[in-house]
């Protein structure tokens, strides 16, 4: 059982380059901020599984952004309303509205549209911001964290030992 958990941890943490972790955060923002059952989240899931992004970071980010979405819903509604009511885009929305599969995505819902626009707009900035923060963390804080008592406790667990062993086999992480 412990080996199984360790294997899962290894898979989740296999892509640990700063770019891979940052990309995971960006995808988690899209999936977390937009309503969970939105159709576009299938594409996000496909991208997360297909691209070499860090899955642990994705899951962690998804939890964080999902919780934040409840607070941000009023802002998403305003953004979505503005975008969907924009006279210049009315023709586009009307065209899409008349395509059954597109309407099924609920793109005409103010919260779906607003959160998607917000997440897409924040995708690239978040990527670069995360990258910078991860580099700085690894340069300045990682050594100190490894020496904390909490980390010593984690390292003493059997799951961590198994994880270290497996990580050694794969050569990653």
């Amino acid at each position, binding site marked *: 059982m412990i080996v199984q958990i360790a294997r899962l941890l290894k898979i989740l943490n296999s892509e640990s380059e700063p770019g891979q972790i940052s990309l995971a955060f960006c995808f988690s923002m899209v999936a977390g901020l937009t309503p969970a059952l939105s159709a576009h989240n299938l594409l996000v899931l496909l991208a997360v599984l297909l*691209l070499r992004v860090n899955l642990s970071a994705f899951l962690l980010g998804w939890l964080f952004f999902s919780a934040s979405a409840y607070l941000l819903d009023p802002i998403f509604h305003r953004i979505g309303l503005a975008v969907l009511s924009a006279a210049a885009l009315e023709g586009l929305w009307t065209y899409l509205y008349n395509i059954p599969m597109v309407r099924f995505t609920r793109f005409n819902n103010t919260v779906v549209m607003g959160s998607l626009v917000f997440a897409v707009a924040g995708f690239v900035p978040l990527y670069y911001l995360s990258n910078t923060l991860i580099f700085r963390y690894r340069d300045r804080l990682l050594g100190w964290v490894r020496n904390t008592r909490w980390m010593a406790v984690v390292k003493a667990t059997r799951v961590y030992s198994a994880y270290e062993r497996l990580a050694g086999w794969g050569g990653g992480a």
Partner: protein
Amino acid sequence: MKRWFRWWGIAAFAVLVVLVAVGWLLLADRIVKNALQSAGTRVVGAQVDIRKADLSLFPAGLTLIGLQVTNPQQPMQNAVEAERIAMSLDAPALLQRKILIEELTLEGVRLNTPRKRSGAVKTASSRRDDAAGKKAAPSASESDLPGELLSGAFIVPDVGEILKNEKLQTLVLAESLRSEIEAEKRRWEQRLDELPDKEKLASYRSRIDRLKNARKGGLGSLLGAPAELVAVQNDLKRDIDRIEASLGEFEKQSKSFENQLNQLTKAPEADLQRLTSKYSLSPGGLSNIGGLFLKHRLRVWIERAIAWYQRLQPLVSRPAAAANGPRAVVPLRGTGVNIRFAETTPQPDLLIRRVRAGIDLKQMKLTGDVETITSDPPLVGRPLRFDFVGKDAAAAGSIRLNGLLDSTDPQRKLGKAHLQMQNVAIGPKSLSDRPEMTARLQSAVVDLDLRTALDEERIHLKLEAGLDAVRLSAESSRGDSGLARALSEALAGVRRINASASVDGTLLQQQIQLTTDLDRVLKDAVTDLARRQATELTQSLRKGIRAETNAPIKETGLQLDRFGRVGDELSGRLALGDNLLKGLL
């Protein structure tokens, strides 16, 4: 490529999608069932239960088994129960979140069936009202009841209780008159002190005697006497005038008090009249008893029908109108707002082209169609129509119900319905369940013609009904008055009832005009008894009022006697003054 992609991710994605799809397929029936139950409960305002839902994808369709819709007014009863509901769905339309049903079949529909557990639900507003201790406004089923209106008729009024609750005008008048006499008495006593008293009048006598003695004196005294005599005479006259004026004023006041005392002695009779008319039932008051029973029942039916219309109306009304351009519509569930755009081939969100229903009534089966149930009638351009017919087993009785609801013009909503019943046997129906008197229509054979019309918020209803082979029962559980017994016997003897009614008004308030020959039957039965009861009550009340008012009236009379002593005093002083004046002249 390998640097960017992990190809096993596609397989993982496929597995996840398949798992979700299988999970959805396994749970779809339950999801649909729960969604319909909660949406139905929200619309009806009481529990909607579905035993089983079966969703099929190829071809798209839905079958519901064991639908129960609770009656919100009676949570232990289902307003409607259906054994099976089957419908075929337009799958491409579902992708556009539209429900288009060509035909929906309702089987085994029954009305007013009992429930095993209460179907009441707590809404946010009712919870708020509960917290605030508010009581819901009474509906026709709770208020405006004949039993309440007639409660006085069935219970012999207790005189002691009446006199305890009622303020007798006699006592009020007596108290007021006594206070007035007392105040006036005090004022007059003060005034007596200011008027020339017997001592002062006696002083005149001394002055007169002195003058008389002076005449017998010398010449000087004789010369001054006439002037002095005139002065005494003037002073005395002035005092006598004051006393006389006061006496006149007093007598006027005293006369007024006597009149009031006279009125006071008649006041008990006025009290008796007032209380008798209030607490006894006049024969005229019984002239609309029958109307009250039937009117109450009619009002309950109208209220229920309007309540159901208002509950279901949002489902078949057009969303916020917007001729062109996008429009915002608040969705039933979820957050955000769905923006609607113009459709190349506009379709309503909900359209059921035809409902075929079979309704099991106790005596017969009613079958028929409802056409064009839609959330957007102006778009569909056809009104909702319904037509049901039923015949009983012996084919002697028949029912036909048809009508339409036309909302195709967004500016004006029109509707009409026509119900015809011929030789239809009806079972037990409660007319009044108040403790003062329960009345029940045990059975009857009904001929009925009912037409209703709706124009926006205004409704009009016309009813003509004839009930044959009537069996009515009634009993009073509170007080076995002869009146209640007579009413019960009269109701038991009724074999035919004719009634006609018209209702006009708005959905919020209606005026009901009802005439029925039941009134005459009941009036004849109870008129003598009502008179006798009124006589008995009058006699008892007279005795009781006398006992309460005799002493205060007597006391007021004595007080007026005491007040009269002021007059005696004034008269005495006046007589004394007059005697003195006569002696001078």
